[in-house]
């Protein structure tokens, strides 16, 4: 070998060794780094690691349902879905995205017409450019729609390849609209009112928690660790509310308030024997002149009741045996001055001496207060004791709590004066709520037995009854039966021949009392000549011979020029009592006594549920094939039925639901109709109760951008 060659070999070798040495250093530093990672991984690093890779996810408990007394749903939580598009999903290639975006946008525009196909495309392209990884493309859709979307281009590729996934959440749905809205309550900005608020802890259930570990990027998988808790769904509450009575009461109140342009008002309907609240309506005039359920006046507005309170005076006088029904009092022709207090009767007396019955009948302020003064002037405490005995001085216990409290003037209070007793006797100098007035009148209706008002009669959890709330007696003998019977007669007189004779009816006897109170306006008092405000009320029960329902009506600050309880509140009472009488009292359904199962009347609705019910009562059913649908695309085949023609042979005919065409909803229950419309992706509004009688747009109308459907419901 030549010298240069030997030299060049040497150079190659030396350089190769240098390279090897570099590589060796690289390899060693890899191992050192690995060792450092193992040694240097202290708890802090470990924690940091695990914090980034695990998370605790709250599993939302499904809120419990609220039912009416007949089991109708008032409020429920249904699973709803939001559709999320991860436009940069790992598997979503440009080829797929660009290739399918047109057809996907077209499908989107058909289901969500707020954008047309090209707008949807533009929208999605824009967000793909922006690398949006969380784009909500639809909100609050039902499961049927999710199922449909899963068949679309892109979406059918799944979460990882297509980027489209679904977020489930419970959405609260109310089925009664404005009906008893405030009573049932709602949740707004995390505060719940009405029954929703009062029973919140029960309805809410308990959220679960689940530990999740990061799989890759934004993908998490649940892991099993000890402290995972599964969600406990909320309990259901069954109320005593009767949807039909509620509707009747609310409608009557609304009409009454509208006629008087009153500021607000409320109605409570109680089942006399049990104390169960069948309806509770509160309406306030909005700025647009319409009435809305806003505050629960029935429970929480404490005002001077006025003449309806004269019942207490009558109870005291009779119970203490101070007077008999034939004793009379000098009414001074309806005008009396006591110290600085001028008393005046609204109805000018036709005679000088009134019995107690006549005092009530004509709502005589002078007569009533003179009776009370004669017998309690020396011992006013004995009089106020009656108010306490009847529990009027304390806030009544009720399912929906109130924040304020009543006040009853008593002699040991600092404000007590010589005019306090006569003032109290006719319903001033004290503040009670409509609910308390109702309880007082119901005690008379119930032969002296004071009932605890209640609105929740059952608590259920996942179909099981947890507890039943039975009617509760507050005081078995709050008033003696004799006094109650006497007062019932007197209250009938009020309606038959007295201030409320405008609502007298031959069909049944009403016992009740009007009330017209000046509203105290804070410091300025009552007597603002040009701006007097009144509260008109009526409390009573019917049929007087066997009271079924006790009702209180309070109308606050009417602005029509009329103001008395007899003119304003009594007609509302009558509107309600008439309808309740015709639907709930007069018509007593006789139970069927058939041994073989009777085919029930079947109305249009959910096919699966209908079949289940028929099956439960031992009737088999079969679905008819619809010959006309062969050439048309039918959505939801066989899910809804129209049995109107075939009801008795128990063959169920499917409702034809064509794409982009509004089906005939007539005869459907509200729930079925709403579900069907929701399945079709349509919004609905409705009024009335019962079954769908009219719909706009008309059946078979093409539905496009104008996707709001109005339903008119009527009882069937």
């Amino acid at each position, binding site marked *: 070998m030549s010298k240069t060659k030997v030299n*060049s070999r040497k*150079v*190659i*070798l030396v*350089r*190769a*060794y*240098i*390279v*090897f040495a570099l*590589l*060796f250093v*690289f*390899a060693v*530093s*890899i*191992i050192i*780094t*690995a*060792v450092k*990672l*193992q040694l240097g*991984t202290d708890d802090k*690093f*470990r924690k940091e*690691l695990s914090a*980034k*890779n695990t998370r605790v996810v709250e599993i939302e408990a499904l809120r419990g349902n609220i039912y009416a007394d007949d089991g109708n749903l008032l409020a429920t939580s249904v699973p709803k879905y939001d559709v999320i598009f991860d436009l940069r999903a790992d598997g979503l*290639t*440009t*080829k797929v995205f660009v290739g399918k975006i047109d057809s996907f946008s077209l499908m989107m525009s058909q289901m969500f017409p707020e954008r047309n196909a090209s707008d949807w495309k533009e929208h999605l392209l824009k967000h793909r*450019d922006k*690398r949006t990884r969380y784009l909500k493309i639809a909100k609050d859709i039902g499961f049927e729609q999710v199922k449909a979307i899963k068949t679309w281009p892109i979406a059918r590729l799944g979460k*990882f390849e297509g980027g489209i996934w679904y977020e489930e959440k419970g959405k609260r749905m109310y089925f009664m609209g404005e009906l008893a809205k405030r009573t049932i309550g709602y949740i707004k900005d995390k505060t719940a009112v009405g029954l929703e608020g009062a029973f919140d802890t029960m309805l809410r259930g308990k959220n679960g928690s689940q530990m999740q*570990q*990061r*799989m*890759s*990027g*934004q993908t998490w*998988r649940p892991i099993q660790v000890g402290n995972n808790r599964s969600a406990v769904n909320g309990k259901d509450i069954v109320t005593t509310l009767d949807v039909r009575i509620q509707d009747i009461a609310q409608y009557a109140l609304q009409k009454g308030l509208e006629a008087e342009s009153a500021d607000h008002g409320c109605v409570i309907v109680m089942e006399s024997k049990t104390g169960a609240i069948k309806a509770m309506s509160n309406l306030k005039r909005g700025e647009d002149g319409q009435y809305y359920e806003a505050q629960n006046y029935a429970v929480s507005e404490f005002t001077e009741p006025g003449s309806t309170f004269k019942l207490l005076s009558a109870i005291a006088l009779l119970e203490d045996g101070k007077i008999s029904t034939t004793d009379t009092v000098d009414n001074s022709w309806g005008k009396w001055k006591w110290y600085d207090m001028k008393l005046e009767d609204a109805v000018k007396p036709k005679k000088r001496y009134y019995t107690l019955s006549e005092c009530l009948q004509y709502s005589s302020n002078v007569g009533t207060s003179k009776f009370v003064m004669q017998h309690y002037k020396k011992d006013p405490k004995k009089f106020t004791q009656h108010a306490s005995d009847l529990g009027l001085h304390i806030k009544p216990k009720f399912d929906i709590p109130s924040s304020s409290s009543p006040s009853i003037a008593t002699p040991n209070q600092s404000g007590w004066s010589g005019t306090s007793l006569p003032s109290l006797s006719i319903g001033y100098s004290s503040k009670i709520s409509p609910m308390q007035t109702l309880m007082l009148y119901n005690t008379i209706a119930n032969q002296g037995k004071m009932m605890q008002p209640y609105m929740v009669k059952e608590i259920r959890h996942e179909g099981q009854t947890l507890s039943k709330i039975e009617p509760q007696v507050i005081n078995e003998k709050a008033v003696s039966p004799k006094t109650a019977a006497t007062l019932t007669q007197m209250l009938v007189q009020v309606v038959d021949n007295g201030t409320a004779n405008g609502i007298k009816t031959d069909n049944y006897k009403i016992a009740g009392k009007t009330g017209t109170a000046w509203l105290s306006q804070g410091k300025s008092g009552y007597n603002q000549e040009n701006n007097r405000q009144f509260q008109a009320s009526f409390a009573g029960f019917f049929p007087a011979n066997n009271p079924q329902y006790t009702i209180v009506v309070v109308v606050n600050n009417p602005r029509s020029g009329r103001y008395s309880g007899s003119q304003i509140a009594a007609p509302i009472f009558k509107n309600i009592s008439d309808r309740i009488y015709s639907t709930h009292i007069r018509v007593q359904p006789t139970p069927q006594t058939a041994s073989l199962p009777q085919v029930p009347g079947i109305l249009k609705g959910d096919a699966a549920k209908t079949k289940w019910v028929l099956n439960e009562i031992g009737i088999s059913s079969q679905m008819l094939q619809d010959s006309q649908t062969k050439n048309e695309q039918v959505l939801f085949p066989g899910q809804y039925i129209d049995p109107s023609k075939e009801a008795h042979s128990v063959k169920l005919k499917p409702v034809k639901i064509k794409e982009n065409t509004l089906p005939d909803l007539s005869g459907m229950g509200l729930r079925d109709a709403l579900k069907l419309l929701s399945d079709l992706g349509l919004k609905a509004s409705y009024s009335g109760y019962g079954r769908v009688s009219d719909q706009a747009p008309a059946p078979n109308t093409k539905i496009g951008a104008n996707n709001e459907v109005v339903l008119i419901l009527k009882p069937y």
Partner: protein
Amino acid sequence: MNTQFTSRFKGDKWIWFVIIILSLIGILAVYSATGTLAYSKQGGNTEWYFLRHTGFLLIGLGLLYLTHLIPFSYYSRISQIFLWISIGLLILTLVIGSEINNATRVIPIPGLGITFQPSDMAKLFLVMYISRYLSKNQEEIDSPKVFWVTLVYILIVVGLIAPENLSTSLVVFLTAGLLMFIGRVNFKYMMYLSLSGLGLISLLVVVLLNINTDGMEGNRIPTWKKRIETFMGKDDGQGNYQQLQSKIAVATGGVFGKGPGNSTQRNYLPHPYSDFIYAIIVEEYGLLGGLIVTGCFLILVYRCLKIVVESPRAFGALVAMGLGLSMSLQAFVNMGVAVGMLPVTGLTIPLVSMGGTSLFMNSIGFGIILGISKYIEEEKQQQAEALHANIA
């Protein structure tokens, strides 16, 4: 090792040993690491990838065996034409290649369901061609012409790989540069080259960190930018997910590991069977496992160094060293990523990571190295026999 083996499997025993060890570890690690993939792609059939990988490996080892039988001088002749074919295929890839991880690196082979990665092939033949060119020009090795010609070839190949696979192109560039260095290219030029190389890389990093990649989603630039930013400590919005998961795997492995099949990080790491296989190996087999794999590649380079020492011809020495370097560098970069020393790349560990054609190409590379060592052994034997004959 018995004579049966030595008679059939000629060449450096240590390198054979390295091949066997790496293959076995690869099979175990791939089997463990493909669990998630098996669930998402093969309906939970966990054997599918195991069998496929083992099958590919056996084919690869077959190729390796065949290659090592071929006299290595033969490669000198074919290297030029194959380099041009590789360059053609690289251009083809850029034009028609299909997307894998948003990177166009491969040409699908119709009917076989596998893809062909021309960069693996180009790497192999670039090493051979440079070795050939340098060994042929050893007499005038100091001339600028040799330097520039070599550099042009390197830059053509690297430039074609870079747009879609920056990390591979950098490893190829580094390998080729080291090969030039070993091949006695003028030290002054090499200094200039390494300085300008470093300058270019720094420039690339600075540019990547400062450009706005909006509207560049058709290419790899946003990915590069993101990976560098992530490496520099910027949260990528997923908690620097990949590197973090990899570090967890390494950190929790301990000295002896969690045991075969007990990796938990395989569920969280993307491509645990290829890009992050070293993390899985350390997690399951501990530092010991990691040390063995790293050691295997050091042994490989050391044995190649031995070949350099013993090789009578510069071509053989340079090819062996170049191939050994190329595979080890690639493996070390993969390991460096796994332990968090380097930003995330898509580089695999030769023979260990799952992969189709890259496995074959690496097998062929090993085969060539063994072929060279076989030739050297035979040469030594002949010399010894000649010596014997002379003495006798």
